[in-house]
């Protein structure tokens, strides 16, 4: 039988998502358990992503499993011209599960078709990063107590931001209203807006964060990168419009939380960090519990 992999958030039913999130809550209560004793997990990072890799390795270690792998492909056989096919066919002999990050889009789906053990996609180029989405959902559920009837305010680069697209698609399974705050050049692509319209979900677009900030249950910040602008002058004009400062939060909802996939550069001013509404570091911790839940679900251990 083909092992169960997680390549895209769409691979999961809403029921399965809910199950993973409640399992993550169990791991939050008891993060150290012996469930993975004797199991070996490979972390194959064909491009570096220290944060994601450490989160996975922490998740495995807390459950008593062992991790092997590489952190960038320049030190591995890949540089000698080995195909992904051969790497996966070899590595799946050594381990019980593969966590893979790869710059080529679709590489994770392909690996999951070849592999005899479950594959978790930890990012395939600009395509999917489902464990990030699940930890975002977990953070939203945990702080709001529900995923129903929330207002999500997405800020910054909504055009190229893989995490916001994926979160939008996932949250559209529940009744959600969205505010999209972005400069003209980085607006939410039409296909996502059409998707929401077809589902009858509300969204509103603006270039001014202050206009919608007080409606938000969740503010999801992303980085506005200079290299995304065809005209550097445009970047100079907008770069400070998408920075969150503490004084902007005074009238926001009491239960509102600020999320960010990290790393941040300057889009959230450090004066926000002390505010109880800042949640991005806890969000990163939630990533460990969520990944514990995902690993155990795919291995059929919970």
């Amino acid at each position, binding site marked *: 039988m083909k092992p169960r992999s997680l390549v895209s958030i769409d691979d999961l039913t809403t029921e399965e998502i809910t199950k993973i999130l409640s399992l993550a809550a169990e791991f939050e209560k008891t993060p150290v358990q012996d469930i993975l004793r004797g199991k070996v997990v490979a972390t194959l990072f064909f491009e570096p992503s220290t944060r994601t890799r450490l989160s996975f390795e922490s998740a495995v270690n807390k459950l008593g499993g062992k991790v092997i792998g590489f952190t960038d492909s320049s030190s591995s056989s890949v540089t000698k011209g080995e195909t992904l096919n051969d790497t996966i066919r070899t590595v799946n002999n050594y381990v019980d599960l593969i966590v893979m990050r790869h710059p080529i889009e*679709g*590489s994770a789906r*392909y690996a999951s078709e070849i592999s005899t053990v479950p594959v978790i996609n930890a990012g395939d180029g600009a395509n999917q990063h489902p464990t990030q989405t699940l930890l975002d959902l977990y953070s939203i559920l945990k702080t709001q107590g529900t995923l129903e009837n929330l207002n999500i305010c997405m800020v910054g680069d909504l055009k190229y931001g893989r995490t916001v697209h994926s979160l939008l698609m996932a949250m559209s399974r529940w009744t959600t209203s969205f505010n999209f705050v972005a400069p003209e050049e980085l607006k939410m692509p039409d296909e996502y807006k059409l998707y929401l319209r077809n589902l009858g979900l509300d969204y509103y677009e603006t270039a001014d964060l202050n206009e919608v900030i007080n409606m938000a249950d969740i503010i999801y910040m992303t980085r506005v990168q200079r290299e995304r602008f065809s005209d550097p002058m445009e970047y100079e004009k907008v770069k400070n419009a998408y920075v969150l400062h503490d004084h902007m939060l005074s009238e926001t909802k009491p239960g509102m939380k600020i999320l960010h996939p990290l790393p941040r550069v300057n889009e959230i001013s450090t004066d926000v960090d002390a505010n109880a509404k800042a949640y991005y570091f806890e969000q990163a911790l939630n990533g460990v519990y969520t990944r514990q839940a995902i690993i155990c679900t795919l291995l059929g251990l919970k």
Partner: protein
Amino acid sequence: MKNVDDPKQLLVSAIESGTVIDHIPASTLFKVIKILGLDRIRNQITFGTNLESKTDGKKAIIKIAGKFFEDDDINRIALVAPNAKLNIIRDYQVIEKRVVEVPDTINAIAKCMNPKCITNFEKVTTRFRVVSKKPVALKCLYCEKITDQERLEII
């Protein structure tokens, strides 16, 4: 001997039994030949191209003696010849007419337009879900990007 073809089709000789594929855009004739693997079979094949057509501009026609196609096989040409019409011939008579329909999935024949897709790096058989039939839009099962009619390339 009756001939069922219209006078323009007479430019290409009639067949006793087999399949006539008409209304192929002249520009995609060779793609149709490739998709159906006609360059690899031993049947007698005649074709005409750059024929005048009232509806399609320049069209092409293929006649394959002694060959009958399964729906799944013939529907693959709908990607490049969406208006193709099939005449199934026995004893010089048309016994059945068929149109082609874009199938729900497309495997192995189309190329993913995304240069960063794994199917353009390794020997992976391309697989698409058809998200729109007219105009054709294919969603790659690997990179999840859409390849539309304009960027459609047959492997």
